[in-house]
């Protein structure tokens, strides 16, 4: 279906959290305050790399109005965090490794006082040589940033004999692709409220994509049982992967416990830039060869990722990049190596697309270069090589089959934008404006992958006041999870929105159901409800049968209560059913995200497919590129929430537009050059064009039991290669480094305008 409001009928749904958002009434966790609360601030390193010789906090501690000053000596438990590999100090002991590293923190009666107190903390540093690139980190003479050296992780995947196969290729292309340090730029910066409770408990109101994981890590840091910590983690003003890792939570928690008072923290944007994680910059070398028929027979990939000062999810991101570096293609001989290197450049971590964006940009660039070398239409070359139903996954693992690859390919092949790409009518007359069209395709794995605990679950209850309550451990960070869940529950029970109570984002009230990440939450909620609907309905209708004297088979759930099938008005209300139950009626499920049966670390089982076609206008005088039209095809199974689905693909694509054209958190010698939103430019309304079409392909093979696939990430993956392909179509210039530099384009264009031909590298 062409996804739009008019095509969605009543499934186009006003979000349950909508009114609070448009009126400003909704309290985000950073909006909360309590009487007598203190303000927390963190002292961060001025050096990207240095020894800490001494820390003196006496002057700050003596300042009236300062209630707590903490250093590493105040960390009662394990002074390390990290979602996958805990190597980041909450508060540094003897060494700082990036300019966001925390050395001390203060809680004071006002924000200004806390800031002033930070200035009274004396730290003696001895600067160390700065490793400002992965290449520098790999130099045998480089200082070691961590005990095991500067290599966080290596990957290696081989199939066949690529070296030998290259000798049989009719065409071989080689390219080196570079991608930027993209920043999540969630509008709500990190923060929250940290409240000491009676009986030694601590309540944390702070954004995260996985409340239970935060609770586990905080329990280790604070040396407190997990049961003593409550994490309330929704609503969130955007995350995109950027708030999955702990950020202010260790400081807020430690300060609250030390001062015995509620502590509010809210990072400034500058501090958020300095301390926050970014998308891994990657340098990707690819050598790819095809035979005379256009079949890819050899593919060699070398990926170097700058993981920054600490691990976070650097290893899984590299695994994901390695898995997706062959695109959705059948290739006989593959040789991929990846390396993720520690540097003093900030910290890289999880970001929408999870390493797929970088390598798909490279792979699709290779496809265009091969097509040109062989004189084959680029979309046709993809078709020749596209994986089909029954083909294994990129690591030759068994995967859940769909026809997604061919469906999205065909959708673009047939769309007007691609079909009319050679039509010259309507083109601008100005000789310095050029129009071009490009397209790209991707497959994108969902879930955490083989070998990683990826639990899911949920609970359904009938509450005493007659609400059908659904409790899940997921978070609403804007993606529309609440709206999707409400739609699914209304579908299941044919009830009214008012009959529902949705509970998420509170570790005291929800079951463990895994992280809201990896495009998994919608799938997991759907699968959990499939498991729970039978038992829950049968008990509910059984109880209603006792109350009405009618057999359960003749009853059904509806708005307000239980009906006789086809009858008007409920025979008993949900509240009456609840009152008649001795014990609260509830059903719970726990299961694991579906994984491939083949034991390959990180390999995925469920994939979504997407293809994008774009039309761009390039200004040869300014080097500026404007996207004029976009067509997206996404094969992700049934559309649960059309507004959310469309919003995720539109939003993901505009985020990718920034990745392609403007966004780079520039660093120089380990210091951020780009510190705020005046120099870090994300797209505005004027950067987008109103023409945007989304074809959502809902058909799944018969018997598919996995239902809707997530679309949180896939809209952000294939746009960059489509845009650079369109720039080439318009100007003959091939781009291999993102963001596309207008200055560099101008230099190429100067030659074109001088009539020296259009071919350039």
């Amino acid at each position: 279906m062409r996804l739009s409001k008019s095509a969605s009928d009543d499934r186009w749904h006003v979000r349950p959290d909508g009114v609070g958002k448009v009126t400003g009434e909704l309290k985000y966790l950073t909006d909360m305050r309590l009487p007598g609360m203190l303000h927390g601030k963190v002292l961060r390193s001025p050096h990207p790399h240095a020894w800490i010789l001494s820390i003196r906090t006496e002057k700050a501690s003596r300042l009236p109005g300062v209630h707590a000053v903490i250093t590493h000596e105040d960390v009662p438990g394990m002074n390390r965090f990290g979602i996958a590999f805990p190597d980041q100090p909450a508060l540094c002991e003897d060494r700082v490794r990036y300019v966001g590293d925390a050395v001390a923190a203060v809680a004071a009666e006002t924000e200004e006082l806390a800031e002033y107190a930070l200035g009274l903390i004396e730290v003696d540093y001895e600067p160390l040589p700065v490793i400002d690139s992965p290449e520098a980190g790999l130099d045998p003479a480089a200082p070691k940033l961590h005990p095991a050296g500067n290599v966080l992780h290596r990957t290696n995947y081989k199939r066949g004999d690529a070296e030998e196969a290259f000798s049989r290729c009719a065409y071989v292309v080689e390219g080196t692709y570079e991608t930027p340090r993209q920043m999540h730029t969630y509008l709500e910066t990190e923060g929250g409220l940290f409240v000491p409770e009676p009986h030694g408990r601590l309540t944390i109101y702070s954004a995260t994509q996985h409340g239970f994981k935060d609770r586990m890590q905080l329990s280790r840091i604070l040396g407190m049982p997990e049961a003593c910590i409550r994490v309330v983690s929704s609503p969130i003003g955007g995350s995109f992967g950027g708030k999955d890792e702990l950020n202010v939570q260790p400081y807020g928690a430690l300060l609250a416990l030390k001062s015995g008072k509620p502590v509010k923290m809210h990072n400034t944007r500058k501090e958020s830039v300095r301390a926050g994680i970014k998308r891994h910059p990657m340098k990707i070398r690819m050598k790819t060869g095809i035979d005379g028929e256009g079949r890819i027979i050899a593919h060699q990939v070398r990926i170097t990722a700058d993981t920054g000062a600490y691990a976070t999810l650097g290893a899984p991101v590299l695994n994901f990049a390695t898995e997706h570096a062959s695109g959705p293609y059948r290739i006989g001989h593959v040789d991929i190596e990846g390396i993720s290197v520690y540097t003093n450049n900030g910290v890289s971590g999880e970001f929408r697309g999870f390493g797929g964006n970088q390598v798909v940009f490279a792979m699709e660039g290779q496809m265009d270069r091969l097509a040109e070398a062989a004189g084959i239409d680029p979309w046709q070359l993809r078709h020749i090589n596209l994986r089909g139903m029954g083909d294994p996954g990129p690591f030759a693992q068994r995967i859940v089959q769909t026809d997604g690859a061919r469906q999205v390919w065909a959708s673009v092949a047939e769309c007007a934008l691609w079909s009319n790409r050679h039509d010259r009518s309507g083109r601008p007359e100005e000789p310095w404006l050029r129009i071009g069209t490009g397209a790209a395709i991707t497959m994108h794995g969902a879930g955490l992958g083989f070998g990683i605990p990826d639990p899911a679950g949920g609970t359904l209850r009938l509450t005493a006041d007659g609400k059908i309550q659904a409790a899940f451990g997921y978070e609403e960070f804007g993606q529309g999870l609440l709206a999707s869940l409400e739609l699914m529950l209304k579908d299941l029970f044919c009830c009214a929105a008012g009959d529902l109570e949705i509970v998420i984002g509170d570790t005291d009230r929800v079951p463990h159901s895994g992280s809201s990440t990896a495009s998994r939450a919608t799938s997991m909620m759907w699968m959990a409800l499939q498991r729970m609907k039978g038992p829950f309905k049968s008990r509910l209708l059984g109880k209603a049968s006792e109350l009405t004297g009618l057999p359960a088979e003749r009853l059904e759930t509806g708005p307000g209560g239980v009906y006789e099938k086809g009858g008007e008005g409920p025979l008993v209300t949900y509240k009456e059913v609840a009152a008649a139950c001795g014990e609260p009626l509830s059903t719970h499920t726990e299961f694991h995200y579906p994984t491939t049966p083949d034991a390959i670390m990180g390999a995925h089982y469920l994939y979504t497919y997407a293809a994008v076609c774009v039309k761009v206008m390039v200004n040869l005088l300014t080097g500026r590129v404007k996207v004029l039209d976009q067509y997206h095809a996404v094969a992700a199974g049934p559309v649960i929430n059309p507004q959310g689905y469309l919003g995720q693909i539109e939003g993901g694509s505009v985020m990718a537009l920034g990745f392609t054209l403007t966004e780079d958190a520039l660093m120089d010698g380990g210091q951020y050059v780009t510190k705020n939103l005046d120099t870090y430019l994300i797209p505005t309304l004027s950067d987008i064009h109103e023409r945007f079409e989304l074809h959502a392909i809902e058909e799944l093979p018969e018997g598919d039991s996995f239902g809707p696939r997530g679309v949180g990430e896939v809209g952000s993956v294939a746009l960059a290669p489509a845009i650079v392909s369109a720039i080439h179509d318009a100007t003959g210039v091939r781009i291999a480094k993102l963001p596309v530099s207008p200055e560099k384009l101008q230099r190429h264009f100067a030659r074109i305008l001088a009539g020296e031909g259009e071919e350039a590298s």
Partner: protein
Amino acid sequence: MAQPGLIYWKSEVNGVETVLSVSPSLRLIDLLRDKLELTGPKLSCGIGRCGACMVLLDGKPVNACLVMAYQCSGKRITTVEGISGQELHPIQQAFLTEGGFQCGYCTPGMIVTLKALLDENPSPSRGELEAGLCGNLCRCTGYGGIERAVRQFVKARSGTEPTTSGELAAGMDAH
């Protein structure tokens, strides 16, 4: 009587006369969020670039992070909380029905800016809309839902439907 170093601050905030004793260098955003607990205006970049803190000062949109308390004493201040009356303002309604928000953190600033823009110019061209919203960033929607909301609002108010390349698109230029 204001304490030493503080100023006597009196303004009409969302239609209510409000009197405070505050530091003159207090930013309006902090005054609203911390002193008056009006947390609709959001703080994001702090340098007037993102528009999340936008409020109306005597009907004109301003970044509340760039205005000091002393600069707005005696003026009429409207935050997103003051935009709707008994019912939602039609712009808010359009945001709801068209999906003009996701995480919602930019939404108050976006709605405040649009209120001022559309009050002044009921039928903006695409170029005028681009200029009007150039100081409001949204990271979630990609602006698609926001643009549909504006379109729907304009249509409902004028009773005419702007064509796809009509009113809102008329300002498109080749930059």
